């Protein structure tokens, strides 16, 4: 029994449990908190998989910034009351569950066909992470992935501007949307 196996078997059920709890919690704040738990477990798994950089990013950016944003919005809108979980669309629930199971099964078979379920020989990750994971990652990121990286920065700016514009109140526009003709 290796340490990583232990860690996996501890975090994996926890992460699944957190996910289930998230989708079942009636209160959005609770859901968000369960998601944070889930994100933390995944961060741990990143570490196990030899990616300390992503471990850190996951915690700071995801569990930190993004989830705070979520909570902000929840509080802003005041939707933290109890939500009904009663299904309104006929057949939605059992179809979703059956298809979900099907998806898992398919991926299971795919993985079994591809990698196999037993442990195989893995490449030496220490050589890949030579000079530290962050340095190695930076070399890849600013090497072959330089152009996509720059594009991503544009994406972020656009997203920020877009969100700002979207959030601005424009009285006339709201009237237009509420007009009966538009709703028809």
């Amino acid at each position, binding site marked *: 029994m290796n340490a990583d196996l232990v860690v996996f078997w501890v975090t994996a059920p926890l992460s699944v449990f957190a996910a289930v709890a998230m989708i079942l919690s009636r209160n959005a704040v609770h*859901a968000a908190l369960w998601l944070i738990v889930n994100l933390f477990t995944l961060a741990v798994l990143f570490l196990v998989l030899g990616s300390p950089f992503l471990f850190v990013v996951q915690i700071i950016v995801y569990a930190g910034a993004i989830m705070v944003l979520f909570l902000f919005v929840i509080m802003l809108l005041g939707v933290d009351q109890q939500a009904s979980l009663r299904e309104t669309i006929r057949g939605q*629930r059992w179809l979703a569950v059956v298809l979900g199971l099907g998806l898992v099964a398919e991926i299971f078979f795919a993985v079994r066909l591809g990698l196999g379920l037993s442990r195989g020989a893995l490449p030496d990750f220490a050589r890949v992470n030579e000079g530290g994971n962050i340095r190695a*990652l930076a070399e890849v990121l600013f090497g072959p*992935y330089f152009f996509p990286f720059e594009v991503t920065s544009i994406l972020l700016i656009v997203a920020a501007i877009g969100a700002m514009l979207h959030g601005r109140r424009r009285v006339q526009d709201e009237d237009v949307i509420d007009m009966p003709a538009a709703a028809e």
Partner: protein
Amino acid sequence: MRTPISFFLLLSAVLFTLGTLGVLLRRNALVIFMSIELQLNAVNLALVAFSRQWGNLNGQVLAFFSMVVAAAEVVVGLAIIVSLYRKRRSADVDEASLLRW
């Protein structure tokens, strides 16, 4: 490392499916959005696992990008949810069904 990579992939599959179920079964736009985040993270896990499997950093870089995109997406998505809520006083996606027929 003793844990088979396939375990991570299966965990990723389970989480992804749970995220999917969240999207399909919940009506609160915020929770749906969180479920989408869950799906993204499940995929990130798979990516990092691949990175480990093949011994290069492409998977991690991709996961990194996916986080960036997720951040952008969250920003825009939340803005949309906010304006949707402003119009309808509700975050129930079933009520926002203007684009039918």
